[in-house]
């Protein structure tokens, strides 16, 4: 059903008129979902503050304030979230942590998107034995303890943020590939693909112009659910001390430091932990909302 609707919408000549209406419909449905709308607003504000905040705020993230070591939150002194055990401004550090988390989330999800969509589209479109082998490979990959391989990678090649991007992207593409493959399987037998093939469009262009755009709905939903997943894994690694390194920070590092100081300085745990929780909540609600909006089957 969902596929049918998208088909009409983005396929061939009717694209202009109905294509918008599908996405407009979805958008309208999304707007009726209060949790999603609130989440969008909250998330956007967090992103804005995290991106702009450190520029405006006078305190650098790695400056040590010797008079304010492990100071409780104090608006007048300018330390909104207090300071950590080293006397650094926790507010600015949390903002940097959010930046790193979001960056990792976006880039790693981007990597997984590219790999997963390409792999899935080829597998589904080509079909037959190729499809079988490609999906068997995904099945085998699925049963791997990937978290541990990522840790293994960190151990071997050192803690490098680009490695985190690549490793997490390489881990998260499997489900994406399965989703796109399923879509591709059903799309490739539609009339407009047949028409394209009959008029001599190359396989590459059919995949690029017809298969992938029509599979986008579920992919977008899955992307919004992958981003929090990736943020979570990065925080997990950083929490264990295997992620981002000092003086750079991430939410996982801050939470780990806060957990060690929570008896004497609970704010060092509470602020980064809430930041992470709020971000994850927002993404999950947006993902749920998008799924309801883009998938009329459930309605």
């Amino acid at each position: 059903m969902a596929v049918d609707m998208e088909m009409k919408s983005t396929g061939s000549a009717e694209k202009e008129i109905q294509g918008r209406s599908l996405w407009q419909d979805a958008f309208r449905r999304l707007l009726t979902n209060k949790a999603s709308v609130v989440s969008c607003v909250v998330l956007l504000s967090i992103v804005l503050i995290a991106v702009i905040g450190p520029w405006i705020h006078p305190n650098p993230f790695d400056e040590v304030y010797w008079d304010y070591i492990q100071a409780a939150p104090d608006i007048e002194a300018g330390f909104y979230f207090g300071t950590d055990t080293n006397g650094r401004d926790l507010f600015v550090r949390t903002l940097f942590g959010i930046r790193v988390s979001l960056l990792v989330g976006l880039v790693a999800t981007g990597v997984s998107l590219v790999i997963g969509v390409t792999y899935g589209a080829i597998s589904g479109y080509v079909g037959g034995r190729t499809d079988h082998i490609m999906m068997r490979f995904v099945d085998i990959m699925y049963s791997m303890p990937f978290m541990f391989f990522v840790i293994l990678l960190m151990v071997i090649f050192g803690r490098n943020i680009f490695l985190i991007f690549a490793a997490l992207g390489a881990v998260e593409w499997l489900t994406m590939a399965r989703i796109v493959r399923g879509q591709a399987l059903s799309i490739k037998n539609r009339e407009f693909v047949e028409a394209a093939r009959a008029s001599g469009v190359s396989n590459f262009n059919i995949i690029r112009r017809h298969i992938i755009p029509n599979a986008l709905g579920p992919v977008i939903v899955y992307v919004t659910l992958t981003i929090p997943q990736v943020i979570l894994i990065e925080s997990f690694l950083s929490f264990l001390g295997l992620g981002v390194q000092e003086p750079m920070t991430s939410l996982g590092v801050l939470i780990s430091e806060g957990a060690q100081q929570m008896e004497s300085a609970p704010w060092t745990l509470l602020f980064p932990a809430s930041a992470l929780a709020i971000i994850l909540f927002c993404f999950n609600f947006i993902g749920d909302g998008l799924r309801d909006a883009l998938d009329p089957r459930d309605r």
Partner: protein
Amino acid sequence: MLSFILKRLAGAIPTLLIIVTLAFFLIRSAPGGPFDKERTVPPEVAANLNAVYHLDDPLWEQYLYYLGGAIQGDFGPSFQYRDFSVTELIAAGFPVSLTLGLTAIFLAITIGVSLGAIAALKQNSLIDYAVMATAMTGITIPNFVMAPLLTLVFGVYLHMLPVGGWGESISQAFLPIVALALPQIAYIARLTRGSMIEVLRSNFVRTARAKGLPERLMLSRHALKAAMLPVVSYLGPASAAVITGSVVIEQIFGIPGIGRYFVQGALNRDYTLVMGVVIFYGSLIISFNLIVDIIYGFLDPKVRMG
């Protein structure tokens, strides 16, 4: 049935082989050898060390050697804990981790299924919303955030439970197990609620009700059994999640399980230990999936045992 099990077993072997192979070549591609951190040793000593650990042999021979050892459960010596082999370390930590993990899974199933079933029976009531909101929280907040928060509240502020340690009293186990089980409770509650709602609308439930079966019997004999299927198939991923979670939980609460060795090994670049644990965890997860597959095959008549 036997051929079904055998087929699944055969499917698990290539996966295990890939895990061992990947782990081995990843470690070997690491910059620097395992003895580089040592003070410079005389060349003879270095040569002897290399000979003992087969580091001079060609790579593929080392691989076969490691593979042969791994099949027999021998992962070589730990480079960090001098007097122990990796296998001994794993054997020392495993009972603790297993107790922790199994209790968490058991807790997750009992509480998760009950909560989910109650929410489904009282669909769209206040109880339902409360359960689902709690489940959402449990799923969203990772256990490395939940564990310190629980400790802060119950250990530091309320002084109800000890904040760490293991094996001295049962109350020490409470917080780690709860922290480990919470996300799984949440997932299972959501799964059970979803499938239970579907089952309650199905024909056989209507028949059972129509013939006058008491609600309690209808639930226990018909509905719950059918609603459990998705939960059973989730137990594979759940066990993987619990194993991953135990790594961080053991670290936080100072529990002497495999996960803690693993993190220490990873931070100290103890290659053989890390590699051994990865392979061990891998085979554990694969075995769990296998068992779950087989149980599922028994429960669901629709699965073909061909």
